[in-house]
């Protein structure tokens, strides 16, 4: 057995995607811990932006919410949300945005709004929050999600946040927006998007996982990269930072 959990692998893999990023838009939950880990490891110059209105946070603890007081004290700048959304996000200053979702399709379109019909839903989900604009306006988007067939579906019940729409050039035809999702980091592997078709392709398997096990959790016939690789496992240092500094209560470990 590996001495780390699937969640920890997912967080470490996410943090590694930030290696060259300068400014990241941080979301609630796993993205939050991944960004904080990246800042302490692969990207010490990384600046954290929170939709609450914070630029350059240096959180002294891992906050439950993205509007926590620890994000404010010692931050570089705190601005009204009108300015954060307009001048930072819409202004094109965000290199990478993180998103999760209840449903994801093969083109990286995301649903966080409803399961079932919009009017009279089976499950009413949280909705967009800042996700729709992050999906459109960040230069790149990273998706974090656990693989399972309820999440990775053939067809979304609702498109909250556009990915590559129907593939090919359908996103670029929307107008002058960011390039959309570039990777989906899961608990079993990393998926990227084909340069031409923009369909999701399994690019890397986490140690101990198989293509078949991944396909089992995906609701469409999954493309697999010719040069499929194995994800490098978390280093002891990364595990120590996560366990001791960022998540001492183990909230994000399982």
């Amino acid at each position, binding site marked *: 057995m590996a001495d780390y959990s699937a969640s920890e692998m997912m967080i470490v893999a996410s943090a590694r995607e930030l290696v060259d990023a300068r400014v990241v838009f941080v979301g*609630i*939950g796993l993205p939050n811990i991944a960004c904080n880990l990246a800042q302490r490891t692969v990207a010490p110059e990384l600046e954290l932006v929170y*939709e*609450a*209105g*914070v630029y350059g946070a240096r959180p002294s603890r891992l*906050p*439950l*919410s*993205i*509007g*926590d*007081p620890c994000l*404010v*004290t*010692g931050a570089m700048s*705190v*601005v*009204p*949300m*009108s300015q954060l*959304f307009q001048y930072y*996000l*819409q202004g094109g200053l965000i290199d990478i945005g993180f998103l999760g979702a209840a449903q994801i399709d093969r083109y990286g*379109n995301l649903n966080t*709004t409803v399961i079932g019909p*919009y009017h009279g*839903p*089976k*499950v*009413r*989900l*949280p*909705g*967009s*929050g*800042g*996700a*729709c*604009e992050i999906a*459109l*306006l960040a230069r790149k988007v990273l998706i974090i999600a656990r693989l399972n067939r309820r999440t990775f579906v053939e067809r979304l019940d*609702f*498109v*909250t*946040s*556009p990915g590559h*729409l129907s593939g090919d050039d359908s*996103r670029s035809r*929307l*107008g002058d*927006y960011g390039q959309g999702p570039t990777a989906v980091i899961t608990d079993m592997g990393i998926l990227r998007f084909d340069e031409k078709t923009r369909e999701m392709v399994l690019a890397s398997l986490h140690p101990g996982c198989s293509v078949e096990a991944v396909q089992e959790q995906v609701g469409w016939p999954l493309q697999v990269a010719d040069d499929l690789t194995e994800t490098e496992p978390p280093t002891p240092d990364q595990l120590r930072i996560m366990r001791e500094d960022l998540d001492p209560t183990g909230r994000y470990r399982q």
Partner: protein
Amino acid sequence: MSKVTTMKDAIAQLVRDGDTVAIEGFTHLICFAAGHEIIRQGKRDLILCRLTPDLIYDQMIAAGCASKLVFSYLGNPGVGSLHAVRRAVEKGIPAPLEVEEYSHFGLVGRFIAGAAKLPFYPVRTFAGSDLPSANPRIRQVADPYGDGQVYVVPPLNPDVTVVHVQRADEKGNAHIWGLTGMQAEAAFAAVRVIVVAEEIVDEAVVRADPNRTVIPGLIVDAVVHEPYGAHPSYAQGYYDRDTQFYLAWDPISRDHQALSAWLDEWVHGLSGRADYVEKMGAQAWDKLQPGDAWSGQVNYGQYR
């Protein structure tokens, strides 16, 4: 003339059944004290507006105060669902709830348009999303300088906005630091404004640092002095966000009976926030006390 009054009187006089109400504050400075007083006074048919309904609207909707919700993120941040809101939307318990839904940026645009008295506000979001098809108030206009279209949202002008602040003078001129969220826009957009302050200070304290004044008394109708009035949300420098409360709310709110019992004990069973503060107990407040992190000060200069 002083505008200082009690929460009871402020809500009784300024909030009417059927009003569009915004108790704003993004995570920070959410005025639970005002929400609880609205529940106690049994206000009905409110159209509640907030980016994140948070626990405050979960409680007000469970109490039957609202007929409609205008929002952009319907979660208990970092915890999960707002179960009372979900029960109302999914099952009509305790009553059906109409929803009008935006993204954060869309609702930010609505508040800006409301404050600026603009007929619409352009936001470069929504493209490729199903949100415009779910909400016909999200529209498009043609760019007169190119051939593209831009999404726009209409102004939002609440009948009443409640803004919690760290300190205000007795006319409502208010300093906010830390997250200022949409507090300025929600207040400027409103017909009536209630300012709720952790501290009432002399006008001279406000005038000593005019760049810190987010709300001018000019737009304020009532000022309420209500220490700890934002708990379990927080006031930067005054008390911490009560993370344990947000986590504990999840099981309570999953069950309408449990939630109603909570409202009986913590809202209906108390006369106001002072009671609530006492019931919480000194130890609870001690645990939420932050250490010091002073801003330093700047010189505005005396010019004669």
